């Protein structure tokens, strides 16, 4: 349902157009003879891919529940033999699926654009894609939870800020932790632990550099475990909020 909505609302078409723009830009660089700049092209390609896929994930996940509430489509839906938990899980999975489709669509377009430069793909590129898809699950779970705790616009804004500035906030918290008293140190540590570590899922920089070796398989497994724990916690919070919500 969420996927069908994204197609008919033309969200995924926007992703396709963005992807086309990436290819077109790459083509322009190719015409001007920049084929040698593999590193630059990969770095740019992965950055664009990361940014747009995160935006798609945030927009989709923060919209699904507020739209149901606003349009009152929740009534006939919850009148069916499904629980509120089933509904939340369905909405989260739908958002993840849309994010993944958008991401893979953009990745395919970026891949075509990079092939134009004669860039070769290796295992590290695949690892980058997998890690990014795991990260998008967390983006979606955070977006869904925030959209139930605040207005749609606020949920969207906070999700985008957390998604793009979590690394910066985390560094600030670490610095604050180092220069504060014991009580505050614990607080900063807790805050840093609660903050989603999106940076861990971005292997773009590593994948962009030539001659870097792939990461060990346990790293991907650890990322998957972190994703599972974090998104399950977010889902639990969303359920606590939604299970007794008067609609």
């Amino acid at each position, binding site marked *: 349902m969420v996927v069908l909505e994204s197609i008919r609302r033309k969200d995924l078409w926007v992703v396709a157009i963005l992807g086309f723009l990436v290819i077109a830009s790459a083509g322009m660089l190719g015409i001007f003879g920049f084929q040698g700049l593999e590193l630059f092209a990969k770095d740019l390609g992965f950055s664009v891919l990361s940014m747009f896929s995160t935006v798609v994930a945030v927009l989709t996940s923060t919209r699904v529940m507020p739209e149901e509430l606003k*349009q009152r489509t929740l009534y*006939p839906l919850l009148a069916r*033999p499904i629980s509120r938990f089933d509904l939340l899980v369905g909405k989260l999975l739908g958002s993840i699926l849309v994010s993944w489709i958008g991401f893979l669509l953009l990745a395919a377009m970026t891949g075509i654009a990079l092939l134009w430069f004669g860039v070769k793909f290796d295992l590290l590129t695949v690892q980058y894609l997998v890690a990014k898809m795991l990260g998008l699950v967390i983006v979606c779970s955070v977006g869904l939870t925030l959209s139930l705790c605040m207005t749609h616009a606020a949920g969207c804004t906070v999700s985008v800020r957390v998604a793009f500035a979590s690394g910066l906030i985390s560094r600030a918290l670490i610095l604050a932790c180092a220069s504060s008293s014991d009580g505050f140190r614990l607080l900063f540590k807790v805050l840093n632990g609660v903050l989603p570590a999106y940076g861990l899922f971005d292997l773009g920089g590593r994948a962009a550099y030539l001659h870097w070796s792939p990461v060990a398989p346990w790293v991907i497994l650890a990322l998957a475990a972190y994703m599972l724990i974090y998104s399950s916690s977010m889902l639990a919070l969303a359920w606590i909020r939604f299970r007794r919500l008067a*609609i």
Partner: protein
Amino acid sequence: MQLPIAVEDLHVQYRQKNGKIVDAVQGLSFAVQPGEVVGFLGPNGAGKSSTLKAMMGFLEPRQGKCDIFGLPSGSVEAKRRIGYLPEVALYYPFLTPLETLHFYGELQGMSGRTLRDETRSMLAQVGLEESSGKLNRNLSKGLLQRLGIAQALLGSPELLILDEVTSGLDPLGRRELRALLNERKSRGCTLFFSSHELAEVEMLCDRILVIHNGKFVEERNLGALREQIGRYALTFISRDFPKNTAQPPTDLGNGQFLARFANKKHLLEAISSVHGSGGQVLDVIAEEGSIEDYFIDTIERAA
């Protein structure tokens, strides 16, 4: 056999945006028997929709409980046996009516050929066959209400809970709906609905429940009510006025008077009295009472 609906001491509260707490429903209790058609009446803001929402598990009562077939309201098992039409029927604007029914049918646990046949049949029954391929966002209010009715009837539920069922329907649509609901009733389906269309209530219901300001006012069997609100008009010539008139007799001139009686017994006594005093009975008319008058009187008394 379990009661389709059993509401006990239901209290529902709302917190308004300004923080003020409003008691939408206060100590409501009633039960609905299997196969019964019950109309739920009350003026705007009486607490009808809040009661229906509590019955569907959309909001949690502050106190009391609603059981559906002996199961807690809002439970998956209870919802499996209910068809529900919300007051404001909005359906996914990016789907067609056919896709909408298909989607709800799947959630109801239907699949394959049964689902295909049932959705097609429902679209035909509510007169949406021609619009089945249009996007919902392009449907009129009346057609959306028909879609709402179709989704509520999908899967032949044992209990239908319908909030403002005739809202947005034209006279033809109302007649078709009446036929559809009567057909469900004949199959043993229990119907519980709120409506402002008292004529519809009169034509469909076995019983009515009246609430006002979130409180129970009264419940009436519609057959008995019709008898009670019916009036008898007697035109007569007599020097002695009969007793037990509903209002003082009206002087029509030429020695003729018109008197109204609330029931047949008083009418027959009056006829005897007129004859006994040497008078003459000129005309007797049985006037059908209006449920609208009854409703307004009841609400005014409750207020």
